[in-house]
């Protein structure tokens, strides 16, 4: 019958498991496996390396398409706007209003006064005073 100390010793000996070991084959197998994993992951890493550039290219294409589409819409919209303006200008300038408009445009800036003009009586008074 073993005493408590001997039992502890025996337990430690069992747990230490010093007789178990792995041979050199293990190391070689493991390194081969590492090589294999590396070669398997290579194409993946290449694609991973290219991924930002591909994404950037796709994004650039989308932006270009968006800009081109907008330009096209603007170009299609512009002639109608210009034509409408042209039409409007032509109409307004050809009518009798043309003269009025030109007269109005010809009014010197000094005339563009905002204060109240003198009344008829005031003019008479000024004449009387020989002003």
């Amino acid at each position, binding site marked *: 019958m073993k005493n408590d100390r001997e039992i502890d010793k025996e337990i430690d000996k069992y*747990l230490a498991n010093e007789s178990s070991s*792995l041979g050199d084959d293990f190391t070689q197998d493991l390194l081969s496996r590492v090589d294999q994993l590396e070669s398997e992951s290579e194409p993946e890493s290449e694609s991973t390396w290219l991924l930002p550039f591909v994404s950037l290219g796709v994004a650039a294409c989308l932006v270009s398409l968006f800009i081109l589409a907008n330009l096209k819409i603007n170009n299609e919209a512009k002639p109608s706007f210009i034509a409408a303006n042209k039409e409007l200008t032509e109409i307004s300038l050809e009518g009798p209003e043309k003269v009025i408009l030109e007269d109005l445009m010809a009014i010197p800036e000094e005339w563009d006064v905002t204060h109240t003009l003198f009344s008829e009586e005031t003019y008479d008074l000024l004449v009387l005073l020989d002003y």
Partner: protein
Amino acid sequence: MKEENSSDKIELSTEHKLMLEVAKGDHFAMEEIVNMWKDSLFRFFDRSLKNSADAEDLTQRVFIRVYQSASRYQPRAKFSTYLFTVARHLLIDEIKKMNRQQVSLYDDDWLDGQGDTQKDNLNEWYEILNYGLKGMPEHYSTSLLLRVQRELSYVEIADIMKVSESRVKTWIHRARRHLKETLENNRN
């Protein structure tokens, strides 16, 4: 128990340097790390799992994990702490997998049909201890194995297992008591 001394520090520094080389893809550095640690890991797994084949497989998986994460490795703690933290994570995954597949961690053939005469030999002692060790919770057996096999301090074990030092002491005490009780209950 083995205390940390200057030679350990030199060894540790060597392992950190080797890991930096592994991160650069140096297979010789990897080979050196494998040769330095393969037996320690294998002994740990061999006592934690059902058979040696599983233990060998898990040892290999630890090194592959170490190799794959070498570029992210930060030498903050002792290399052994890092290595056995990885080992424990894989062990827990493996035990969970076995539990899902309802695979027992121990071979219980010896419990029935074995003659009493065999119980006298050392092999029988080890069978009983095997039964006791694999029948206890993983954190009990891991803390006890790290203490006995690696001769780690309670602080280092607590670091690996991410618990307090006092909890580690309790686990180790209970694990030992469980093994003794298993021996007493199964011996004539």
